[in-house]
C-alpha cells in the first residue's frame, strides 16, 4: 500500500479517488478525493455528504476555480504525472499564497524523496509515496537543505531580508 507522509508521520494511504459522486464507498477514515471537473459539476451534492471530500488537481488546472470553495475544502491534492513535470509547484504556491488555502495540500503521483524539500517549500504538507519506494528513508530528505534563498510558503521572508 502507498504511504502517506503527514506531520512527519508515516501512515497508510487509504484515500480513494472517486470519479463520480454517487455510490462509491469510501474507506471509513480514508479521504475521498474527486477530480476538479467532478467537483465543479457536483459541488452541491458533494457538500451535502457528511464526510468531506477533497479535490484533485492536474497540472493544467486553474486554481482560481476553487477560490470560493477554499473555506469548505479540507484537502486539495495535486497530481504529478511524472516528477519532472513541475507545474504542481506553481499551483501549490498560488493556492497558498494568492488564495490563502489553509487546509491540507497533498502531493500525489510520481513523488520521489528528492522532490520533498522543494515540495514542502511550495506549501505541500502531505505526500503520498508510491508503492516500492522507501517512505522511512524519504523522511531524511525534508532536511536536504538547511535554508532557502527565496521567499517560500513556509518562510515568506527571503534569505536576503534575514542576513545580518
Amino acid at each position: 500500500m502507498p504511504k502517506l507522509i503527514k506531520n512527519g508521520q508515516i501512515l497508510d494511504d487509504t484515500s480513494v479517488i472517486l470519479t463520480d459522486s454517487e455510490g462509491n464507498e469510501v474507506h471509513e477514515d480514508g479521504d475521498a478525493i474527486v477530480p476538479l471537473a467532478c467537483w465543479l459539476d457536483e459541488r452541491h451534492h458533494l457538500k451535502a455528504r457528511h464526510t468531506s471530500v477533497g479535490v484533485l488537481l492536474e497540472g493544467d488546472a486553474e486554481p482560481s476555480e476553487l477560490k470560493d470553495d477554499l473555506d469548505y475544502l479540507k484537502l486539495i491534492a495535486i497530481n504529478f504525472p511524472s516528477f519532472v513535470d513541475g507545474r504542481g509547484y506553481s499551483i501549490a504556491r498560488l493556492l497558498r499564497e494568492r488564495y490563502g488555502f489553509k487546509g491540507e495540500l497533498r502531493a500525489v503521483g510520481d513523488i520521489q524523496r528528492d522532490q520533498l524539500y522543494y515540495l514542502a517549500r511550495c506549501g505541500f504538507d502531505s505526500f503520498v509515496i508510491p508503492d516500492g519506494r522507501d517512505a522511512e528513508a524519504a523522511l531524511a530528505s525534508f532536511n536536504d537543505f538547511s535554508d532557502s534563498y527565496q521567499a517560500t510558503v513556509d518562510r515568506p521572508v527571503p534569505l536576503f531580508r534575514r542576513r545580518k
Partner: protein
Amino acid sequence: MYIYDEIDQRLIDDRVRQFRDQTRRYLAGELSEDDFRPLRLQNGLYVQRHAPMLRVAIPYGLLSSKQLRKLAHIARTYDRGYGHFSTRQNIQFNWPTLESVPDILEELATVQMHAIQTSGNCVRNFTSDQFAGVAADEIIDPRPYAEIMRQWFTFHPEFAYLPRKFKMALNGATHDRAAIYVHDIGIELVPGDNGQVLANVIVGGGLGRTPIIGSMIKKGLPWQDLLTYCDAVLRVYNRFGRRDNKYKARIKILVKALGPETFADMVEEEWKYLKDGPGRITQEEFDRVNAYFQPRDYEQFSGNDAGFEQQKTENPAFARWVSRNVHPHKRAGYASVTLSLKGVGFAPGDATDAQMDAVADLADKYSYGEIRVSHEQNLILADVRQSDLFAVWEAAKANKVANPNIGMLTNMIACPGGDFCSLANAKSIPIAEGIAQRFDNLDYLFDIGELDLNISGCMNSCGHHHIGHIGILGVDKNGSEWYQISLGGNQGTDPLGTKASLGKVIGPSFAQDEVPDVIEKIIKVYLDLRQDDERFIDSVQRLGIEPFKERVYAKAN
C-alpha cells in the same frame, strides 16, 4: 568578487551531501537510470560518448586565481589534464568517472564553486559581460545584479522542473557582449532619468532548432523588481509552456504562440501579486552585495604609459597582439587582456592544467588575482597596468595563450561536437582545426579583420552558429557528416551599432574536407567586394548572401 558567507557555504555543502547520497543510491540500484538522470543533470553531470561529462559553473564568468588552480587540479587529478571552457561561462570536464563526481564537487565547494543547475530543465548558470566593471563602454556594472539573481535562482523550489532549460543573460554596456537577445530572458540595464537603474526585459530569444530573436516585454523595470518580475515570467512559463514535445518546450515557443503582447499581459497579471511582496530587492541587500564589486585600488595615471607606447613601436608582433587582444579600460593607464584559447593543435576553449596554473599566476601578479571567462571561450585578465602588458604578453606566449586573434576568424567558437557529445550529428573540432590551419597566416587574418565564426555539431546550437557572422552546423545525411553554412548572424548590438541577427543558410551542405575551401571562397568574395574598411558582417548585410552563394556553388559550371 562575491565571497560566500557562512550560509552560502552551508548551502553548497548541503548540496554536495545530497548529491553524494543520490549517487550512492543510484550505484546501489535504489534509484533507476531514469530517476537519477534529472538529479545528476541538475548537478551538471551528463553521460557522454566516452565517459560522464561534468559541467562546472563559473557564475557570470568570474574566477579567482585560487578557483582556477582548483580547476587545474581537478583536470589533473580526475580528468586527462585539460578542461573545456564552454560558450556559457562554464568549464566542462570530459573524462571523470561517475563515482568520483561527489568528491570533485566536494573539492569545488572548498573554493566556493559548484555544478548546480548547469544542466537540466531548470534556470541555468547566469551569464554576463566578461568585461563587467572595467569596460570603457560600460554604463552600469551588471555584477551585483548578476550575483543577486544567482542567489535567487539557486535551488529555487518552484522552478526546478521547468518544461525545458532556461538561460538568462545580463548586460550593462553599449556593446552587447552577453547576447541578451538570444536568451530565454535577457536583461539590459539602463540608467533612468533620475539616475536610478532600470532594466529592459527581453524574453523568448534563443538558438537551437527554432532560432528566434527575443522580444522586449518590459521597458524600464526598476532594479528592485528584477526578482519578482522574473518570478512572474517563470511562473507563466512553468504553468503554460509545452511539455508534450521537447522541441517545442522552450519559452520562445510559448511567447511566439501567444504573441509577445499577450505573454507580457499574462506576466503583468501575475506580477501584480508579487511585486510588492517580500521578494522585492532591498537597498540593504544591494549594498551588501555591491560592496564586493568596488573598483580596485588603482594607481592614478594621467594617460597612456609611455613605455608601453614605445614597446608597440619597437615590436610589431606585440603591437599586433595589443590591437586584437588588449581592450580599453575605464581607468587611464590600465587595460583588459584576452588570453586566447584558440589556435592550431587543440580544440577551441580547451586549456591544460599547466595553462590554467600559469594564467592563475599571471592573474596574481598582474590583475588582482582575478580571471574572467568569456562566452567566446577565452580567459581574461581584467585589470592590467599598461606598463605590465609586455610582460604579460611574453608570459602568455610562453604558455601558448597569446594568439593575436580576438574578434577575428580563428577566434572560432565551437562546441565539443561528435568527438565527445552523444547528441552530435557531426564533429566540430576537426572543422575548427582545418579552418585554423587554413587561416594560419596572420597578415591574411588581419586583412580580413573582424569576423565571428561559430561551429555547432548539431541543431542544439551549443556553438551558437546562428549568430556567427559565418555559422557552420553539423548535419546528418544518410549517416554521414555534412556541414551547412550560414552567413550574416550577429550576436548582439556591436560598437558600430549592428544589431543582433540570425544567419541565413547559403545552400546545400558540404563534406568535412570541403569546408576550409568554402570558407576561403566566402572570404575572397568579401575581400573583392568590400567597400573601404567595411567589416565582413556589414558587407554581408549590404550585399545579402547571393554573391557569396554564387561563388561557392559555381564550381559545377
